[in-house]
């Protein structure tokens, strides 16, 4: 008689059992805030298509304290999401060889951060210039 009876373990609440998985769920969760902000922008575009009055109403709504708070939360969440994104970037790239040496994972992540910082500063500069 076959005495084999392999036991398959169930996986309820698997992501709560390891700090690594908890962090994974959190950083995946922050993607929802990226989507939410895309909807805010889309909504603005839609209001713009309805003429000047609608657009001015949208701008006014953006300046309400509630909207400020919402945007602050969005900024933090999207900031964290970008951070995790750059952290994993070295795992998604083929070996990057500069001057005969392989670029380290830390350098790739840092490069991503610096590029984001420069792009954000440039965008802020342009927005500032337009608003003057």
């Amino acid at each position: 008689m076959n005495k084999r009876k392999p036991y398959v373990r169930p996986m309820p609440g698997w992501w709560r059992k390891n700090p690594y998985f908890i962090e994974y769920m959190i950083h995946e969760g922050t993607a929802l805030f990226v989507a939410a902000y895309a909807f805010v922008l889309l909504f603005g575009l839609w209001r713009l298509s309805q003429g000047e009055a609608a657009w001015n109403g949208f701008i006014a709504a953006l300046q309400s304290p509630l909207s400020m708070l919402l945007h602050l939360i969005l900024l933090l969440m999207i900031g964290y999401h970008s951070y995790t994104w750059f952290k994993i970037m070295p795992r998604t790239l083929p070996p990057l060889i500069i001057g005969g040496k392989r670029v380290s994972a830390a350098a790739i992540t840092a490069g991503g951060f610096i590029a984001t910082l420069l792009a954000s500063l440039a965008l802020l500069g342009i927005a500032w210039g337009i608003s003057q």
Partner: protein
Amino acid sequence: MTDQTMSIEVMRYRPEQDKEPWLQSFEVPYSDDMSVLQGLQYIRDYLDGTLAFRWSCRQAICGSCGMMVDGVPKLACKTFLRDYPGKVRIEALNHFPIERDLVVVLDDFIDKLESITPYIVPKEDKPLSEGEYQQTPAQMDWYAQFSGCINCLLCYAACPQYGLNQDFLGPGAIALLHRYNQDSRDGACEQRMELLAAQEGVFNCTAVGYCSEVCPKAVDPANAVNLNKTAVAKDYFLRFARPKGGCK
């Protein structure tokens, strides 16, 4: 050995009498140069001869002693009791069916390993008289890291996607597949592409990344999986532009 002891909790599962796995605690004499594997060997030699676990090399190269140590996939021979002061919990490797105690069923992985054509298929056959297939150190660099895999399956135990869906080809097999694809002497990239592009291939991965974190050989299987996401997408779109066969 000193007269210090520590307690090792070991997962037990004896198919002929247990309905499900349970934990048994053992007091084991402890010295700070003892590996987890030595702790288990002490239990088997002096406390309970029926405890089942796999090991062979004792030096992190055979890949047989993978198990969960305090919930983290580890090689028992490369993990030291001193890092778990007082008490440690040893369980069978996650995501694999348990055969007995710490021994898991590996059939699924072995099938996957066979499926990836895990050997070099020469681009063109040449007669022996023309000598060997040569490769420069720079060409070897492209795959060397991925050839370090010892099939220990810690990465599978770290992968929730594999746990939830056993059809997923998984980190280790994809890392090895990538190793052969990246070999300048190999020409079987095309036949491996089908496995990568399948529903159960690279796109089953949601980039958790824990596989690379736990790999004892710095293989970085997550890197192999993610690089092949790009490779599959390229293969899909470029086939409209060029005939199949330009895999590399």
